[in-house]
């Protein structure tokens, strides 16, 4: 591994997206992240055992099992190792307790009662390793009136306030096209964990982190919350409009594609107006200052839309950027990792997954001059590293491992052994 957290070990029960996105960030930063699944409950983002390998990844030259080829799982678990260990079974828990002294961080995204039920809550973990960092992520956190309510990205987006802000001016509230509270909460969870790691390295003290996705996601609306607490005003939906900048929007081009553009200062405004080539824009008093452009933005938008309708989106983007105007055509899914900046920075990175094949994926969102985070492993297959981890950390011999497999406590496929 590479990255600034080399030497830190995180053993994690995180699954699906929110918690797992956090542990992926820490794995990008070089931590040894060991993800625990069980054969009866593999990560739900593996999509279950039943069904076929997706047609787009079928490859007769490879041994392929459906649960190792799911795009959802394979996209958010880079750089991790995966073991199976059934901690619902007391023998599995006993083995887990032997791993705890070897971990810096234990993370989970269960509902708050689960770790307690297994005797793996913070106090129990701390009894095994006093400086452990125990980090739990759940929908609403372990305390407060909503603590027992379940939630997922699609319901936490409305409960965090973000949905109330997304939508066209005067229109209904919208959920985003993705379950964004998952990676948002995951990013906060990673930030909290790395903060706790720094604190421990200075003081030797561990701690307990209890993150509710609702509060973590709401942090992204902090300025709008102040608008209510300071001014008593509830922020309305404003589409693509900006509180200060006009123009600021998306406009349909001649080729049916959309172009996002804005003019943040006088220089950008003059460049845009010159490019549009409408002399009345530069001459008109109502567009002369940022304040007056904002005041007349409906008229301004109509003029820009008219111009955009005569342009091809890609060519217009080139012209606008060359003139110094912030602009971008709305990318299609297929184009998303093709921006030259992403390729140059190594963010768009090719990985070769043993079963799902070679693909370009979204990698680590940092470039560091001395401890560069790198994608060093594709997402792990179910139970891929069980024997390796047990041998490395617990000095287990193959016979003991085979026994665990026979008991269904570890292994690498469906519990009944069919594959």
């Amino acid at each position, binding site marked *: 591994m590479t990255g600034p957290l080399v030497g830190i070990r995180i053993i994690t029960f995180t699954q699906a*997206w929110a918690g797992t996105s956090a542990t992926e*960030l820490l794995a990008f*930063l*070089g931590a040894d992240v060991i993800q625990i699944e069980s054969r009866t409950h593999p990560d739900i983002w593996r999509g279950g055992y039943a069904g076929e390998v997706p047609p787009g990844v079928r490859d007769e030259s490879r041994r392929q099992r459906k649960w190792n080829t799911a*795009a959802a799982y*394979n*996209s958010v678990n880079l750089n991790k190792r995966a073991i199976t260990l059934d901690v619902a079974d007391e023998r599995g828990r006993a083995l887990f307790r032997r791993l705890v002294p070897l971990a810096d961080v234990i993370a989970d995204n269960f509902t708050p009662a689960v770790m307690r039920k297994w005797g793996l809550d913070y106090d129990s973990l701390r009894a095994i390793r006093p400086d452990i960092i125990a980090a739990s992520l759940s929908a609403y956190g372990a*305390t*407060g009136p909503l603590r027992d309510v*379940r939630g997922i990205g*699609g*319901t936490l*987006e*409305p409960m965090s306030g973000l*949905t*109330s802000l*997304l939508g066209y001016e005067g229109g*209904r*509230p919208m959920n985003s*096209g*993705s379950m964004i509270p998952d990676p*948002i909460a995951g*990013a*906060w969870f990673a*930030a909290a964990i790395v*903060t706790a790691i*720094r604190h421990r*390295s*200075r003081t030797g*003290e561990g701690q*307990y*982190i209890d993150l*509710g996705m*609702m509060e973590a996601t*709401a*942090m992204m*609306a902090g300025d709008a*919350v102040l*608008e*209510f*607490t*300071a001014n008593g*005003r*509830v922020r309305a939906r404003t589409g693509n409009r*900006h509180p200060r900048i006009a123009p600021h929007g998306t*406009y349909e081009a001649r080729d049916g594609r959309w172009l996002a553009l804005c003019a*943040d200062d006088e220089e950008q405004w003059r460049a845009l107006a010159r490019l549009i080539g409408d002399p009345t824009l530069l001459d008109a008093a109502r567009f002369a200052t940022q304040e007056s452009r904002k005041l007349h933005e409906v008229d301004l938008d109509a003029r820009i839309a008219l111009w955009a309708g005569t342009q091809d989106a890609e060519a217009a983007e080139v012209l606008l950027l060359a003139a110094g105007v*912030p*602009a*971008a055509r709305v*990318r299609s*899914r297929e184009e998303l990792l093709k921006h030259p900046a*992403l390729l140059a*920075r190594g*963010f768009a990175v090719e990985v070769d997954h043993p079963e799902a094949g070679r693909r370009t*994926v979204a990698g680590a*969102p*940092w*470039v*560091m001059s001395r401890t560069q985070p790198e994608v060093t492993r594709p997402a792990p297959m179910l139970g891929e590293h069980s024997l390796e981890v047990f041998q490395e950390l617990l000095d287990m011999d193959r016979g003991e491992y085979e026994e665990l497999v026979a008991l269904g406590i570890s292994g690498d496929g469906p519990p009944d052994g069919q594959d």
Partner: protein
Amino acid sequence: MGKHASALGDIRVVDLSTRLSGAFAAKLMGDHGADVVLLESCEGHPTRSEAPFLDDAPGPERSLLHAYANANKRSALLAPADGRRQSLLQVADVLVVSDRESAEAARAAASPAALVVAVTPYGLAAPEDAPGNDLTTSAVSGWALINGDEGGPPLRPTLRQSDYLAGLLAYTGTVAALVEREQSGAGQVIDVSELEPPLWMAAPTILAAAQGDAIGRGRARPGVFSGPVPTRDGYFSVTFSRPHFWTEAMHALGLEDLATDPRYLDRTVRQAEAAPLQERIEGALAQRGRWELFDALAHRRATVGVVLDMKDIATSTHLEERDVFSETVIDGRPVRTLASPCVMSGTPWRVRTPAPRLGEHTDEVLSAWLGQQLEGTR
């Protein structure tokens, strides 16, 4: 601030940012006790000019964005040519910048053990600089592609998500590098692009598209299958991503025939019959209050959410009990602000001091950071 026992209480940060992303990263360092100095010149940090303002009256101390993103900092006002700026840069552990030129200047001035943290639209390692912001980032990252109505203009995300997220990830990378520095004693440049965090958030969609998987349409038709719908007193969201969510929700809404018909456990069947199903479910939801629905559905293990607006968030008893809020001060007025994204038993997130007035701490910072040198030059 350095006196507090906290994760970053030993760290000095100079915030030279001119964008929200960098300002937010530095603010988070302040949340954990770092001594963060917002180094400004007379025009002030750009967030000071961003609407909305306290009582809608513009002024450098009245921007609500500034109040949020620059809390837990001290402000030093020094002209660009003032030699003492360089002296402050030399003694900082972390320098936060927003563009290539400032990154190079910070590297030249800083100690070899310092971290230079650059948060820019496309990243320092991009082949060329291009102007960008949250709007253009949303177009390039696929955000705009998936948000909005089919046929309508693509929508950027709410507020300033790319900025906040880039700032958050810059914070995480910086703290990780501080952990490493304890061993190596060496500094480095941490280069974060505002474009990559939203793309990292789109990783599942991107790989699904590359694998040729059938993925849902990006932008939504209005209705209960894609987002919130009206109730008697506000909007409400129900998800059906797992079969038992559907069954539980239909029972709670009194739609027993839909709950018990096994065909509807299949998402494709629901999609095929979307229009009549939508009409019945939305009809049932429209007759009840949003919290009444939440209580009925959430406790049946359906997965639901009330569309909370900013008043609901600011007055939430759940968030209150979770100790999420702090008091801050904006131009003399005490106000409640979001302060904590999670509970940390050892090093809680805190808003300790309000966003500073322009130049409020110049003398204090010069004396605390450069005391010896200042006396020598007088």
